[in-house]
C-alpha cells in the first residue's frame, strides 16, 4: 500500500462548488443573563424594590461612617448622659410643627408649672405651645401642649472634678451658653430651683412668680457648686441641653430620636441593619454552596444515591428550626459566640431548599442533547455537572437563594426579639433586640419601635418583590410570553 504523506492542496476539490459561508444570524445576540435582565427591567415594581434595597444597604453602610452623632459616641456616651427617649428632630423643621423633637402631651397643672420652671430658669421654650386648656373629671386644670423632649430633660446633678469644672466655665464664657446653674440645697430633683411642696409642685408667690431657693454663700452670691468629699470634686446642677453641646460640640438633634437607653436610633438601627443584611447574605451564600453541591450530586447520579440522600433531607427537613436554634444556642454559644451558633442553626436546615431546587434542575437537564454531546466528547462527570448543567440551572438557583433572604431576616429578628438568641452589646445589636427593648415604651414613645419596625417591613417587602421579579425573569416558561 502506498503511503500517503503529502497531498498537495490543489488536489482537493470542494464537493459543492462554493463553500457555504456560515451566516451570522441577523440581529444582536442576547445571552441568557442579558435576556433575563432585560425582562427583569420591565418589571417596574421589582426595579423599585431593588432600588429600595440598595438605599437600605447604603443606609446600613454609610450612616455609621458619616453620621454626626458618631458611632461610638452615640452608642456609649448618650447612655451615660441619660438622654433617653428623645423624639425625632431635624433642625430644619424646628419651627414647622413636626419632626421638631416635640410631643403632644396632656399634663396636669403641677406638671405644667414644673416644666415652665425649667423654661424660666434656662430661657428655653420647654413648652412650645399650649394647644388646649381643659379640666379633668375632678375639675383640675389640664394642659394639652407640645413639649420639647430635648429641653424637658432639664437638669441633672453631676459630680465634676475641679479641672473639668474650670473647663466648663471657660467654655461657657467662650460660647455664651450657661451649663452650670446655681445650686440648690436639699433637693434631690435637679430641676427644682424654687419653693415647692413635698410632691415637687411649685409654690408660687402672690404675683404668680417662682420663688427661688438657690444656695447662697457668705457674701450673698449664688453658689454654683457644692464641694463634696475631700474637696476635690464638685456637685453641680448641669443643664443637659447645653452640657451636651459642651461635650460634643453640636446641638443635640437626633434625626430618629433616641432609645430607652439613650442610644441614637439612626446609628443603632444602622448597625442592626448591617448585621441583619450581612448575616442573611452569609446564610444565603453558605446555603447556596452546600445546597448546590448536594442537589447536583443527587440530581445527576439519581438512583440509589438520590434515594439515600433524599431520606437524609427528609429527616433533616422535619426538625423544627426553633429546636435546632435553641440547641445550638445552648451548646455552641458559649464556645463560638451566639452569632456563629445562630449561623450554624440556619445552615443546618437552610440548604435543603436550594438542594431541592438544584436537584430538580439537574433532573431536567441531565438527559438533554448538549449533555450527551459533552459526554461523547469525553467530558468527565464533574465537568458535565459544573460546566454544562450548572450554568443552565444558575438563574433558578440564584433566585431561590435570594428568596431565602427575607425569611432569614424575619427568623433572625424573631429569635432575637424573643431573647432566645441574645446579640446585644454596646457596639452591635439586631432589629429584634431593638424591637424588644422598645416595646416597654410602646404606649408613650412609639417612635422607638416605629423605626426598626418600619425598616424591617420595608426590607421584607422589597426583598420579596425583588425576588419575585427575579423569579419571573429567570423562569423560562415565560420566555416569549410578552412578545
Amino acid at each position: 500500500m502506498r503511503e500517503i504523506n503529502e497531498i498537495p492542496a490543489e488536489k482537493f476539490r470542494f464537493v459543492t462548488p462554493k463553500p457555504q459561508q456560515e451566516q451570522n444570524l441577523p440581529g444582536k445576540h442576547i445571552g441568557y443573563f442579558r435576556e433575563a435582565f432585560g425582562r427583569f427591567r420591565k418589571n417596574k415594581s421589582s426595579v423599585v424594590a431593588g432600588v429600595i434595597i440598595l438605599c437600605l444597604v447604603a443606609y446600613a453602610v454609610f450612616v455609621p461612617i458619616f453620621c454626626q452623632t458618631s458611632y461610638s459616641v452615640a452608642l456609649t456616651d448618650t447612655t451615660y448622659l441619660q438622654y433617653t427617649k428623645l423624639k425625632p428632630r431635624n433642625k430644619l423643621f424646628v419651627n414647622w410643627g413636626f419632626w421638631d423633637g416635640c410631643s403632644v402631651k396632656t399634663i396636669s397643672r403641677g406638671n405644667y408649672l414644673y416644666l415652665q420652671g425649667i423654661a424660666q430658669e434656662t430661657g428655653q421654650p420647654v413648652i412650645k405651645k399650649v394647644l388646649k386648656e381643659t379640666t379633668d373629671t375632678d375639675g383640675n386644670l389640664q394642659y394639652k401642649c407640645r413639649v420639647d423632649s430635648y429641653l424637658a430633660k432639664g437638669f441633672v446633678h453631676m459630680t465634676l472634678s475641679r479641672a473639668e469644672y474650670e473647663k466648663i466655665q471657660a467654655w461657657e464664657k467662650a460660647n455664651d451658653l450657661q451649663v452650670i446653674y446655681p445650686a440648690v440645697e436639699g433637693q434631690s430633683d435637679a430641676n427644682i430651683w424654687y419653693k415647692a411642696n413635698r410632691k415637687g409642685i411649685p409654690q408660687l408667690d402672690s404675683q404668680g412668680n417662682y420663688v427661688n431657693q438657690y444656695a447662697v454663700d457668705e457674701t450673698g452670691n449664688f453658689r454654683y457648686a457644692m464641694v463634696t468629699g475631700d474637696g476635690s470634686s464638685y456637685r453641680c446642677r448641669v443643664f443637659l441641653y447645653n452640657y451636651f453641646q459642651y461635650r460634643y460640640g453640636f446641638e443635640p438633634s437626633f434625626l430618629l430620636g433616641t432609645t430607652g437607653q439613650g442610644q441614637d436610633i439612626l446609628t443603632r438601627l444602622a448597625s442592626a441593619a448591617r448585621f441583619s443584611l450581612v448575616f442573611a447574605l452569609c446564610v444565603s451564600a453558605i446555603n447556596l454552596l452546600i445546597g448546590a453541591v448536594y442537589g447536583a450530586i443527587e440530581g445527576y447520579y439519581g438512583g440509589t444515591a438520590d434515594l439515600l440522600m433524599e431520606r437524609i433531607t427528609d429527616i433533616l427537613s422535619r426538625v423544627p428550626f426553633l429546636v435546632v436554634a435553641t440547641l445550638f444556642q445552648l451548646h455552641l454559644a458559649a464556645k463560638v459566640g451566639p452569632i456563629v451558633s445562630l449561623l450554624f442553626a440556619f445552615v443546618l436546615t437552610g440548604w435543603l431548599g436550594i438542594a431541592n431546587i438544584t436537584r430538580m434542575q439537574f433532573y431536567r437537564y441531565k438527559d438533554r442533547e448538549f449533555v450527551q454531546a459533552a459526554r461523547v466528547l469525553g467530558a468527565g462527570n464533574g465537568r458535565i455537572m459544573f460546566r454544562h448543567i450548572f450554568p443552565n440551572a444558575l438563574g433558578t438557583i440564584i433566585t431561590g437563594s435570594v428568596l431565602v433572604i427575607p425569611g432569614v431576616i424575619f427568623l433572625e429578628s424573631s429569635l432575637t426579639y424573643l431573647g432566645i438568641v441574645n446579640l446585644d452589646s454596646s457596639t452591635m445589636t439586631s432589629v429584634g433586640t431593638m424591637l424588644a427593648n422598645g416595646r416597654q415604651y410602646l404606649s408613650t414613645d412609639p417612635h422607638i419601635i416605629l423605626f426598626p419596625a418600619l425598616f424591617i417591613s420595608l426590607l421584607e417587602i422589597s426583598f420579596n418583590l425583588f425576588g419575585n421579579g427575579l423569579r419571573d425573569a429567570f423562569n423560562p416558561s415565560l420566555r416569549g410570553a410578552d412578545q
Partner: protein
Amino acid sequence: MASYIAKRIGFLLLTFLIIISMCFVFIRLLPDDPPEQFGKDMQLVLQSRYRQGLADINGNPIPLLTQYGNFLKNTLLGFNWGISEKLYLGQDCLKIFLEKLPNTVLINVYASLLAIPLGLALGIYAALKKNRWQDHTISTGVMVLVSVPSYVYAFLIQYFLCFRLKLFPVVMEAGRDYFSPQMLRSMIPPVLSLSLSSIAGYARFTRGELTEVLTGEFLLLARAKGLSRGQTTLRHALRNAMVPIVPSIISEVIAVLSGSLIIESIFVVPGVGSLYVSAITALDYNFFLLLSAFYTVIGLTAGIVVDLSYGFIDPRIRIGAKNA
C-alpha cells in the same frame, strides 16, 4: 393505600425518634447544674431524676445509654416527662403543658376561623377580576401583608387599638374562663395579628390556583353548554382549584396549633409559645424536651395529613400507586 399509610406512619415514628433522641442527647451532654442550687427542693429534684432513671439516688450521673433507654420508656410509653426543675419547680411538666395548650389552640382556631373564609373570598374575587383594578388592589395588599412580619401588625394593633383607642385590653386575660366575654374581648388583638398574614397567604394561594384553572378549556366547554359564569366558577373552576387549596389549609391549621411565639409574647398569651420561651430562658430542660417533641409531632403530622388529603379530595390522585 393502607400499606402506604403504614409506611408513612412508620417513617414518621422513625423521624420523631431520631429528632427526640438528638434533643435528649444534646441536652444530657450539657453541663448539668449542681443539685445544691435547688436548695431545700434538692431532694425533690433528685428523687424525680432517680425515679426517671436519669441519675442514681445521690444525683450522680449514670451511663448515657441507660438514661436514654429510661427516657424513652418514660416518655413514649408512660407519658411521663418529669417535673419542672426551674420554672414551676416540682410540678409535672405535662400537666403544666396541658394547662397552657387550650389558650394557644383557641387563639389559633379563632384566627383560622377568621382567616380561611376571608382569605378564600378575597382570593376568589381577585381571580375573577383578574388584571382589573380590584385584582391589583388586592394583590398589592396581599403582597404587603405577606411580607410585613406579623409582629409589626401586633405592635400596630396594640398601639392603635389597645393604647390609643382603648378598645381592647393590652394583654390577654389570664385564667381558665375561656369563653367569658372579657376573655373573648382580650383575645381579639392576638387573633387579629395572627390572622392578617394568614388571610393574605390564603388569598394569594387561592388567586394563583383559581386563575390557573380559569384558563382551562373545560371551562369554555361549560360556558358553551350554557352554564352561567357563576355556575362555571362555582361548580367547575372552584372545585378544581380546591384540590391544592384544601390540603394547604389543613396543613396550616395543624401547623398553626404550635402557635406563634412572638405574638404570644407580645400579648402575654399564657400559651405554649410563652412557655417555650420562658423554659429556654430559665434553662428548664424537661420543658424543652416536651415542647420540642410537641413541635416535632405537629410538623410531622401536618406533613402526613396533607399528603393523604390529596387522595381524598381528588379521586384522580391515587395514593401509593406504583406508577402514578
